[in-house]
């Protein structure tokens, strides 16, 4: 299973559509077996969608996400856990434990990790 998380330093990027780095984790039996950072120079949101397609990503964990992009990703069969905040390593850990939930856009994302 492949999980993508846009990264801003150690934390999840605030906005998927404009994130410059995306880390793609490969998970097997609840363990991260590989992770690769992808750098995106383009400001075009669809380039990020294409990256997820090319890398056959199953789940996107991200901060802010434009409604139409979220709809596009779901229509393509990608599971989306959006509006979360916090450190990328902690988020992936919570996901593997099955405790990561969608955040709420109303500034409460920090309380919605688990």
């Amino acid at each position, binding site marked *: 299973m492949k999980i993508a998380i846009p990264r801003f330093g150690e934390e999840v990027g605030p906005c998927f559509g404009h994130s410059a780095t995306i880390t793609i984790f490969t998970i097997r039996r609840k363990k991260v077996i590989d992770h690769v950072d992808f750098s995106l120079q383009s400001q075009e*949101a669809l380039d990020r969608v294409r990256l997820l397609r090319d890398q056959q990503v199953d789940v996107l964990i991200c901060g*802010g996400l*434009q409604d139409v*992009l979220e709809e596009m990703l779901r229509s393509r069969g990608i599971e989306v856990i959006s509006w979360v905040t916090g450190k990328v390593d902690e988020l992936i850990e919570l996901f593997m434990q099955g405790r990561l939930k969608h955040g709420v856009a*109303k*500034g409460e994302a920090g309380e919605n990790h688990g």
Partner: protein
Amino acid sequence: MAAQSEKRTINAILDAVSEGVFTVDKSWRITNFNRAAEIITGIEAQAAIGKKCSEVFHADICERGCALRQSMDTGENLHGVSARILNAKGQSIPVSVNTALVKDRNGKTVNAIETFTDISHLELLRHEMEQRYFFGDLVGKSKPFGKILASLPEVAQSDSSVLLEGAVGTGKELVARTIHNLSSRHKMPFVSINCEALPANIVEADLFGYAQGATLDKKNHKPGKLTLSKGGTIYLDGIDKLSQTTQVKLLRVLQDREYEPLGSTQTMRTDIRIMASARVKLSELVTCGQFRDDLYFRLAVVHLFLPPLQERRMDIPLLVKHFIQTFNAHLGKNIEGVEPDVTKLLMEYDFPGNIGELRDLVEHACTLCETKSISSKDLPTDFRLKLARKMHRRGQGRADSSHEGSIREAIRQADGHLGHAAQLLGISRTTLWRKMKRLGLSTGDVK
């Protein structure tokens, strides 16, 4: 006590300002968040205060050049920085940002202030004027629409021809323009030709151009749209109306990228992407020999079918909201939405003119609306009558014209006009009046 009173005064001043205002401390945590900021972001001050600003604004500049960080680093205030934030609903809002620094007596920065103005209305007007649409302009959450949305990244990236099929008003040109603007050709022209509106020979001349002496205008030559849109996209609306001769010439363009202007022997080469649309199923025209099969297959490399609005009814409230925002910008109004009964009426109607008809209807309602919310009286009479006829036809199986409920419904739909109500019930005005008298009904009771 004095400090608390001063804070209340500052908060009252901030809330009175029409621009969004917030302040952050040196660790980027929000310390003040005014009323306008709540409205623009859709986030309450209580939820925002104490959070990092990037967790609240989700702005495009958070990563690539935070305005507040620049101010903090350089010690200078910034003005008119363009940015986009995501509001609580996930909508992308264009804003204009200013920053200022708060310093202590020793000149050390203690806080930073950011003010921001929602400039959505300006962007909407600019998009409309320039007809530049992006995927954010495509509105909908229904399954049929989701399929089109999901295909956009690939369609935009490829250089293949696109055939868009769908009834009138389903948004074929909007989708074509969006694909163009998302493609690598977006800096080059998007040229549209309406093959239905023009006679066949004019379409041919318009598309391929003509050489000097080829037409009555003997002195001049005219380059065709294929030349003018070089490097860009040409959109042929109503391709099903293209003459057989033009079909052959267009096929050559698609196969060999070559053509000759009318009356010329000089072969021109072109580098364009072709998108075409048809209101009818082009494959059926191929079957009956009215459209070339080879051209059809060349055009339909990417084949998108845009569903009629009645197949994506759940998108109607979203589209209405989108159009209200558009017309607010055009008309300088501040309409917030529609009354619940209006949504119900819109969901009942079949919209044979599809999204185009819905857009016209919302424009009519926005023009007439004098309050914050569109009510049923703001809707066009024609729409209400058509809907009432539909409701009546549906109700015919259940109740006849003497049924009190049917009469009440017809009068309500006709907005109290007895002549129209009688028409809906299929009876004369006098008969309706007699039935109402027998039932003890008056128009006042019904409205």
